[in-house]
């Protein structure tokens, strides 16, 4: 009886365990790849963040095109880099993330060994053009430029921003800080403070609690709080987006339209999603993946899924992606070099 019970208990446990651990790789797919399963590790651990949604569209449609089982695994930046670092060259593990992949190294949030040079940059696939700054609806300013003017006109006041250390929010704040310093002087810029937070949900709560004046969010995620019927204490308003072009259907000015510049050039930041692969990933895999991505990204299914959350397809093939990202990185890193340290901005 006991043996039976033991066997009955062990078999399902082992089955679940083995299924949970998952064996990657395999005997190959019909597409000539050495793998029939690809683990796509994500640089974000959240299933509500834009990385997860963009990766879902990618894994579903590109996986289908490749005829392999692609599975997104939201494990967070450090774990994802580690997984990529120890990945085989057959493409069984690749990483999906956005510009924070290299910005986080520059900010010191991730170690130097995970810098862009150590990976093979895969295709760029999509953009979230909705990265935005927001304030409480009752705030005495309607745009980022007006917020800066308000700060200048009210010498006793500070402007506190909810941002994540080493994130894209810190980058956009850095650009704003440099512009304010240039436009209104260091005394005004020094009254820009940060309140360190993580997720979008935490940023919203910090705003509602009155602990911060401005938060970094997105059109998709925050639009619901800007509607007229929303209660006053949680109602928000958009102050500006960082994308290079305005988003259709929304009357939110870009930084460029507000005249926010760094080094004499308008500050624009399009949050772009791309793949990273092991440096010596097999040529066959990367070429097959690249052409499958090129095809999949033009399908209605892919485009429609991105459109649900107001993301747009933005394909840059592997042959150009490295230079494309490098150029962007250099510009953004020069902004980071000029900006004050995060800890100096802490309130």
């Amino acid at each position, binding site marked *: 009886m*006991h*043996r039976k*019970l*033991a066997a009955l*208990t*062990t078999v*399902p*446990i*082992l089955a*679940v*365990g083995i299924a*949970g*651990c*998952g064996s990657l790789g395999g005997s190959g797919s019909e597409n000539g790849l050495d793998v029939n399963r690809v683990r796509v590790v994500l640089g974000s651990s*959240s*299933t*509500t963040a834009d990385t*997860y*949604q963009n990766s*879902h569209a990618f894994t*579903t449609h590109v996986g289908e095109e490749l005829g392999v089982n692609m*599975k*997104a*695994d*939201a*494990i*967070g930046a*450090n*774990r994802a880099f*580690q997984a990529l670092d120890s990945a085989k060259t057959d493409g069984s593990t690749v990483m999906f993330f956005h510009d924070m992949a290299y910005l*986080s190294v520059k*900010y*010191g*949030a*991730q170690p130097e060994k995970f810098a862009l040079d150590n990976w093979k940059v895969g295709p760029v696939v999509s953009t979230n053009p909705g990265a935005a700054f927001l304030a409480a609806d009752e705030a005495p300013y309607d745009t980022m430029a007006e917020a800066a003017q308000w700060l200048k006109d009210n010498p006793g006041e500070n402007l506190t921003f909810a941002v994540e*250390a*080493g994130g894209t929010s810190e980058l956009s704040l850095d650009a704003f800080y440099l512009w304010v310093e240039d436009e209104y002087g260091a005394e005004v810029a020094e009254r820009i403070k940060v*309140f*360190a937070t993580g997720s979008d*949900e*935490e940023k*919203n*709560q910090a705003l509602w*609690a009155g*602990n911060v004046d401005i938060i970094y969010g997105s059109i*998709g*995620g925050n*639009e*619901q*709080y800007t509607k007229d*019927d*929303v*209660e006053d204490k*949680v109602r928000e308003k958009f102050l500006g987006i960082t994308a290079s072009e305005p988003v259709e259907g929304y009357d939110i000015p870009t930084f460029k339209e507000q005249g926010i510049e760094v080094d004499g050039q308008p500050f624009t930041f399009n949050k772009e999603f791309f793949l990273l692969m092991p440096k010596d990933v097999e040529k066959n895999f990367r070429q097959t993946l690249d052409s499958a991505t090129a095809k999949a990204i033009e399908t209605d299914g892919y485009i429609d899924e991105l459109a*649900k*959350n107001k993301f747009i397809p933005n394909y840059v093939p592997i042959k150009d992606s490295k230079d494309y990202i490098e150029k962007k990185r250099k510009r953004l890193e020069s902004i980071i070099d000029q900006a004050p340290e*995060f*800890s100096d901005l*802490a*309130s």
Partner: protein
Amino acid sequence: MDVLALLSPMTFLLVTFGVLVGIVFGSIPGLTATMAVAVFLPLTFAMDLSEGLALLIGLYVGGISGGMVPAALLKLPGTPSSVATTFDAYPMAQQGFAEKALKIGIVASLIGGVISLLVLYFFAPVLSGVAIEFGPVEKFLIILFALTIIASISEKSLLIGIFSALLGVFLSLVGVFPMNNELRLTPGFLEDQLYDGFSLLPVLIGLFGIAEILRNSELGLKDAAGKKVKLAKSKGSDEAKFKFSVFKGQGVNTVRSSFIGTFLGILPGVGGSAASLMSYTQTKNFSKKPDKLGKGAPEGVIASEASNNGLTGGALVPLLSLGIPGDSTTAVLLGAFVLQGIHVGPLFITDNPDLWSGIIIALLIANVVMFLMMFTSIRYFARVVEIPKYVLYPIILVMCVLGSYAINNGVMFDVWTALIFGVLGFIFMKIGIQITTFLIGFILGPSLESNFLDSMQASSGDMLVFFTKGPISWVIWALIIGSVVFGVRSNRRKKKAEAAETAEAASAGAN
């Protein structure tokens, strides 16, 4: 849309399937409700949203409920929120009343789940205001309040209890400091492995699973086999039989615990584990027989299980009325909405009445199905206690290793973490550090820290903010003080009674 349309056979099937899989996930230490929801999340994209949510809600309720099974049978909490279930359910199981303990837990879970569901249905928009009123200062104090359980459960010495909990908090801070991304308390050669700190579940598995195996191995398994647990036959024994009358006199406890669970669920960033711990403390403080708690009292099982299931409806309050998830599982659940392009926010309920009703109905079905499934099958599970330890322990060890490996999809360091904390737990037992309070410190440490830091950021470092913030914080302070005083007094009474017993025994021996 009428109710019948919402009750489609497909919805029912998906909820049922979700509850079943959820119970399996919850029952296996290392697999949690959050993980179950995350695994099935991508599948929901191909479904109608209300069907997808039905599946995920089933997984959520099943996962939270399943955690009680190993907690009662193996003293190994299936999920962090069932830690407090081990306090009384395990001693009951060891006395041969495993089936009764589990049935009490299942009924309490149903009541907790249904109460939280009613609160969600009738008061969600009103309570979202409460969630906003509770800022970091109040949340820090709430967690401090949950920590007062140390005063109640400290075996022998309160000072050692506090020390153990602080050690737990300390070790929970290992890894990257999110405010500036610097590593702390991390040896150079383990920077990669410890970047995100020690994972909670391997620590829990190590402390409760592996350490216990080591302790029993030291005692000798042959001896232990001699003292084999025999499941008491409920037919022959009135004490072993589960009767609903066990809830007689427990009405206040059940309702209070359900409300504590629901309320803590409503507060994002406090954590589900705090709910069952806080309910347990309050039950002990208000109990007529506090000495019985921890030794196999049904009221302890009721407190823990009513509150951790109360959490389910509670955590959905801020999610559905503000778009802010109440706990880690609802955070993953929110992903199902976002994948479909639906952003849950303050207008969600008014804009999506059908979806809202669907969620409520799915939650109700999930609770009923969970009850029926577990209540009818639990006597088979309960037989696990009859398996001799020399057969059972190797199975648990395999489970511990596999569970730890699976937690982060195959990180070997998590297995090492379980083994390291297994050995540490064994050493802790030897030197008198209390494992349970250590774990409570470890679980609550990160939210304690983040709320403390947010309070400091918001007040420019003024520590007085914890006393001057306003009436809510004063009420929580009063509760904290009351709870500590109760705990200390009851410990003293217990010690006095024990001393009197010893003296009596000694004088009887002398005569």
